[in-house]
C-alpha cells in the first residue's frame, strides 16, 4: 500500500536494499557468514552479472511468487491458487539466455524449466496466478478497500506535510506519512500494522480534520464509503477525458481514483503474452523459459511449446478498469460518466 500511495520511490526492493546494506542486524549476520551485503543487494535490484541468481529473487519463476500465491490462496480460502510447487521446483534447470550462444558461461545462465517435466507445471502455475489475480487481487471488494486506504494515506500525508496531523498520532506513523514512506531503516523496521491501526484509532477523534476522521473511522468499522463503477473497456481518449473531468469534482486519490489492472504494483499476470511484437529485452525480462535440461542448453519462452498458453496469448484478458469515488461525490460523478457516454 505504501508503494501505491507514495509512488515508485518507495519500492520494496529499494527498502530491502537499505535494510541489508545499512548498519544493523541483517548486515552483521551476512558479514558473519562471509557474505557481502552489497552482492546480496545486487541480486535484489537485478544489477548482478549473475542473472540466474537474480531470477531466483525476481522473475516469472521467482521464490516470492511461488510462495505468495499458495499462501494467499490458503489465507483467503480459495482453491484457485493451487499448483504443484514441489514438482515445479524439481523441474527447474539451468539454460542459456535466449539469443545468446549456448552453452553460455555463468553470466548467461537463466533459471528455466526442464521441457520434458516442467511444461505442465508452468501452465498450472500461470493459470493459478491468473485466477488469483482475477478472483482475489483484482476483486472489486479487495481493490475497493485498497482504494479507501490509499485515499486515507494520501490525506494523512498531506496533513503531515503541513505538520497538521493530530498530536495523538504515534511518532512512527507521523514520520512515515511525513516522509511519504521514506522513513529510515531503523524506523521502518519498527513500523507495523499495529502502529497504523493505532494512528487510525486516534484519528477517529480528529474533530479538526473531518475527512481524516471519516476515512479512518469508516475503515476501522468496515463501513464502505467508496462507490465502485465498473468501466467498460474504452478508448484511452475517454479515460484521459474522464480523468480531466473528475479533477473538477474532487481531488485525485483523495476523493476518487481510476483503478486499472494495468497500472498497479502487482506483477502483471498476462504480461508475458501481451503484444505480438516483442523485443529480446521483453522476452528476456518477462518470459517463463524452457530448456532441454542439460547445463547451459538454449532457453526459449514457454508459450512456444504450449497450446494453452498460446491460446491465452492470442486472446488476452481485457484489463479491468474501475472508478472508485467517495460516496459524497457519487451524483456528480454519475453525471460526468453519462456526459462522456461511459455507462
Amino acid at each position, binding site marked *: 500500500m505504501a508503494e501505491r500511495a507514495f509512488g515508485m520511490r518507495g519500492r520494496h526492493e529499494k527498502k530491502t536494499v537499505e535494510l541489508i546494506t545499512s548498519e544493523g542486524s541483517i548486515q552483521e549476520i551476512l558479514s558473519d557468514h562471509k557474505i557481502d551485503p552489497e552482492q546480496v543487494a545486487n541480486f535484489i535490484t537485478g*544489477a548482478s552479472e549473475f542473472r540466474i541468481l537474480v531470477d531466483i529473487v525476481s522473475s516469472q519463476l521467482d521464490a516470492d511468487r511461488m510462495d505468495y500465491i499458495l499462501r494467499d490462496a490458503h489465507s483467503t480460502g480459495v482453491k484457485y491458487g493451487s499448483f504443484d510447487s514441489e514438482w515445479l521446483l524439481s523441474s527447474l534447470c539451468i539454460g542459456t*539466455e535466449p539469443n545468446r550462444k549456448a552453452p553460455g558461461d555463468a553470466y548467461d545462465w537463466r533459471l528455466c524449466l526442464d521441457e520434458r517435466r516442467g511444461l505442465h507445471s508452468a501452465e498450472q502455475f500461470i493459470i493459478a496466478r491468473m485466477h488469483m489475480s482475477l478472483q482475489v487481487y483484482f476483486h472489486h471488494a479487495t481493490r475497493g478497500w485498497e482504494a479507501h486506504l490509499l485515499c486515507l494515506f494520501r490525506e494523512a500525508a498531506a496533513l503531515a506535510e503541513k505538520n497538521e496531523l493530530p498530536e495523538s498520532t504515534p511518532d512512527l506513523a507521523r514520520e512515515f506519512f511525513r516522509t511519504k514512506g521514506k522513513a529510515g531503516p531503523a524506523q521502518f523496521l519498527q513500523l507495523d500494522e499495529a502502529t497504523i491501526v493505532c494512528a487510525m484509532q486516534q484519528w477517529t477523534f480528529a474533530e479538526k480534520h473531518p475527512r481524516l476522521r471519516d476515512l479512518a473511522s469508516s475503515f476501522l468499522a468496515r463501513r464502505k464509503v467508496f462507490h465502485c463503477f465498473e468501466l467498460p473497456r474504452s478508448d*484511452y*481518449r475517454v479515460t*484521459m477525458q474522464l480523468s480531466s473531468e473528475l479533477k473538477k469534482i474532487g481531488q485525485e486519490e483523495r476523493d476518487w481514483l481510476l483503478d486499472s489492472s*494495468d497500472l498497479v504494483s502487482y506483477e*502483471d499476470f498476462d504480461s508475458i503474452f501481451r503484444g505480438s511484437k516483442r523485443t529480446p529485452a*521483453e522476452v528476456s525480462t518477462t518470459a517463463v523459459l524452457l530448456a532441454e535440461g542439460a547445463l547451459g542448453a538454449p532457453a526459449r519462452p514457454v508459450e512456444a511449446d504450449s497450446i494453452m498458453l498460446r491460446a491465452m496469448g492470442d486472446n488476452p484478458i481485457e484489463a479491468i478498469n474501475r472508478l472508485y469515488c467517495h460516496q459524497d461525490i457519487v451524483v456528480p460523478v454519475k453525471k460526468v460518466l453519462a456526459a462522456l457516454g461511459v455507462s
Partner: protein
Amino acid sequence: MHPTIRIAHLVHLLKRIEGRKKLHKIVHILQELGAPFVEPFQYSQYGMYSQQLTTEMGHLVRDKLVTEDGTNVFVFKPSKDLARLLNALKIEPEPEWASLAHELNKLSPQMLEGISTVLFLRERGYAKEKLRLRLVALKPRLGSIADECIERAADLTENSALV
C-alpha cells in the same frame, strides 16, 4: 495527471523516438532527474526497463494515438489524433522537462543505456571509481563509452533545472 497522458505528451513533443530501448531509457533518465514520470523501473539484462511503460505504450498504439512501425527497431510517432486530444485536455504545451527530453532524444541508445545505468548505480550509493568498475562489469559492451556516460550523467544532474 493520468500517467499515460504524460507519456503521450512526451511522444507528441519528441515527434519520433527510435526504439523501445530509447524510450525506456529517456523516461527513466527524466524521472531520475526529477521529471514527474511515475512508471516503476527495474534493472534488467538490457538496462532499466518498465513493464508499466510497455503497457501504456501498447494502449496508446492500440488506440491509434501513437504509431509504432518497424521490424527490429520500433519507431514511435504521434498521430494527429494525439495532438487533438492533448489540446482538448489543455495540457501545458512546454513542460519544464521538454528541453531535456529533446536533448536526450538526440543521444544514441547505447549512450542512454549507459547514462541510465549510471544514474541507477548512483542511486544505489556507488560513486567515482567504484561506480565506473560496476558499470563496466554490468555493461562490458559499453566499456569504450563508460567514461563519457559517467561525465554526461554528471553534467545532466548538475545542469538540470528539474533536480
